C-alpha cells in the first residue's frame, strides 16, 4: 500500500485565523490536485506561534459547527488533514493542539505534552499541558501525532511506537537559532538528527513539518522531512520559504525493514516497566 503524503510548510499571520484558514484551503486544493492522500500543516498553523495574550481570542473547537473547522472537516472528505490550532476544552483550558481530520470526522486530537518554558520559549505561561500520548487508527494504519518539544523528549515517540504507530507525524514552529560556520542552523540540524534517529530506532515512517516566516525577529526555518523505516531521508523541503513537499510512503517497507531488523518484536516492555517502577519508586 502506498500513501502520498504532503507537508505544507506555510507562513502564518499572527492571530489572524480567517486569513490562515484561507491559506490552508489553498494548500488543500494544491495537495488535492497532486492527488495527495494526507496533508500535514505545522504547529499552530491556524493561529501563528508567539501568541502570548492572543491565545484566548484565537481558540477553536474541532467540531462541525465551528466556523473554521467546518471548512476543514468538509475538505477532509477529499484527503486527510493534520491541522495545528489552539484547542479550548469545556473548562476553558487552552492547549497547543493538532487535529487529524478524515472523511469529515475528527479521528484524533493531540494536546502538546511538553511546553518549552525556557530560553526564548514561554509556552507554559500561556497554555495548559496535555496529558496523553496516544496512537490512533487511520485508513493508512496506525498513526501518532507529536508537536515540536514533544519529540525533543525521547518518551513520547517511544510511547507512540509501543501504542502501535507506524507513521509518526511531527509538526513544529521551530525558530531558527545557532548560526555558526555550518550550512545549517543548529536548530535544524538537531531536529533532522532526531527525526532520522526515531525513524531508525523505531523502524517507522517519521515525517516532520515545520513552519516558515518571521514573527518579529524569529525566523521559522521550514525544511520539512520524511524518513522511512530504514532511517533514510525520502523527502526534504527547502529552508526558509513556503513549500508543499510530497513523499510517497511505501507502507510495505515497514514489513521488509522489520523482517530484517526486529527491534519492535524484541523490545522488552516488561523490563522497561519494571525498571521504571523501580527508578520512580526510589523516593
Amino acid at each position, binding site marked *: 500500500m502506498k500513501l502520498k503524503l504532503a507537508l505544507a510548510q506555510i507562513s502564518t499571520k499572527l492571530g489572524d485565523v480567517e486569513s490562515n484558514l484561507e491559506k490552508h484551503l489553498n494548500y488543500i486544493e494544491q495537495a488535492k490536485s497532486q492527488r495527495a492522500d494526507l496533508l500535514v500543516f505545522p504547529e499552530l498553523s491556524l493561529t501563528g506561534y508567539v501568541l502570548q495574550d492572543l491565545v484566548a481570542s484565537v481558540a477553536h473547537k474541532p467540531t462541525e459547527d465551528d466556523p473554521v473547522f467546518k471548512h476543514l472537516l468538509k475538505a477532509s472528505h477529499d484527503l486527510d488533514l493534520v491541522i495545528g490550532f489552539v484547542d479550548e476544552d469545556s473548562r476553558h483550558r487552552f492547549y497547543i493542539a493538532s487535529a487529524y481530520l478524515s472523511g469529515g470526522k475528527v479521528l484524533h486530537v493531540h494536546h502538546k505534552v511538553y511546553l518549552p518554558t525556557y530560553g526564548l520559549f514561554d509556552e507554559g505561561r500561556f497554555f495548559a499541558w496535555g496529558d496523553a500520548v496516544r496512537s490512533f487508527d487511520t485508513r493508512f494504519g496506525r498513526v501518532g501525532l507529536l508537536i515540536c518539544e514533544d519529540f525533543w523528549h525521547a518518551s513520547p515517540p517511544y510511547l507512540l511506537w509501543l501504542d502501535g504507530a507506524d507513521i509518526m507525524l511531527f509538526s513544529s514552529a521551530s525558530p531558527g537559532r545557532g548560526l555558526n560556520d555550518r550550512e545549517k542552523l543548529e536548530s535544524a540540524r538537531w531536529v533532522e538528527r532526531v527525526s532520522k534517529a526515531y525513524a531508525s530506532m523505531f523502524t517507522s515512517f517519521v515525517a516532520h513539518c515545520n513552519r516558515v516566516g518571521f*514573527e518579529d525577529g524569529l525566523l521559522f526555518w521550514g525544511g520539512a522531512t520524511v524518513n522511512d523505516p530504514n532511517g533514510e531521508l525520502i523527502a526534504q523541503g527547502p529552508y526558509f520559504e513556503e513549500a508543499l513537499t510530497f513523499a510517497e510512503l511505501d507502507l510495505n517497507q515497514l514489513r521488509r525493514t522489520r523482517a530484517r531488523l526486529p527491534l519492535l518484536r524484541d523490545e522488552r516492555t516488561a523490563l522497561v516497566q519494571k525498571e521504571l517502577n523501580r527508578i520512580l519508586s526510589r523516593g
Partner: protein
Amino acid sequence: MADLTINTDVAREILTGFIRSEVTRVGYSRAVINLSGGLDSALSLVLAVEALGAENVFALRLPYRTSSPDSLEHAQLLIDQFQVPSETIDISDMADPLIRHDPNISNVRKGNILARMRMIVLYDRTEVFKGLPIGTSNKTEILLGYSTLWGDMASAINPIGDLYKTQVRQLSRALDIPAPIIDKAPSADLWAGQTDEGELGFTYERVDQLLYLLVDQRYSPQECIEEGFDEKFVHTVITRIRRNQFKRMMPPVAKLSNRTVGYDFLYLRDWGT
C-alpha cells in the same frame, strides 16, 4: 580561541528575509538608513538593498562640521556602488545652538546631542521617503551599551543586532563592501580622532571573544578567567553589560492596575500581520 565564524550565505538569507518581511508586512516597501561611513551602517544598507531593491533604500549622510571627510567619502562610495537615492544634510546648524548653550559641554554630551540630532533627521526623512528607519547597532555595542539611547539606537528594525563586530566584518567582506570601510578603525566620529577601541580600552577582536563565552556560551566569569582573560577585563565587561541594561529596554511602567503595558499586556509587534 572561540570560533565566531558564521556561514555568511545563511546570515545573508535570514537577514534580508527579515528586512523584507518586517518592512512589507506593516505596509511599507522602503527603508531609510543613516549612512555614517562606518561599517555597521554600510552592512545594514547593503542588506536592505538586497532585501528591498536599491531604489527603495534611501541613504542619509548627516555630517557635523568636525566629522572626518573620510566618513562622507566612504558613505558616498556605498551610495555610488549600490546606486541608492541619497541626501546629505549638514547637522551643524541644528546642533550648534544647543552645544554652544554650555561652553563647558563634555565630549560625551556633545556626542549624544549629535547622535540624537541624527535620529531626528532620520525619522523626519522616513516620513518624506515613506520608509522605515533601519537600525545599525551590532551585538557588541548593544551589550556594552556603547551607544546613545534614543540616538543611534533608534530604529524600527535592526537586522545586525545579533552579530558581533567581528562577525559584521566577516559578513561585510562577503557582501562586497569596499575594503577601506572594512579595514578602517571603527569610530563614532563624534569628535576628531575618536576611535571605538581607544575609547573602550580594548579591541573588538578580544571583547567579542569574551562576550561570546559569557553571553552565548553561558560561561561564568571564573571560567572566562580560566580561559585566559584578564580578571579586571572580565569584570569591566560584565559591569558594562549590567549597567547598560536600561538601554536595551523600554522604560518600566509602575504597575497599578491588573493589566499593565510591559508586564501582562503581551503581544508581539507583528500582532495581526
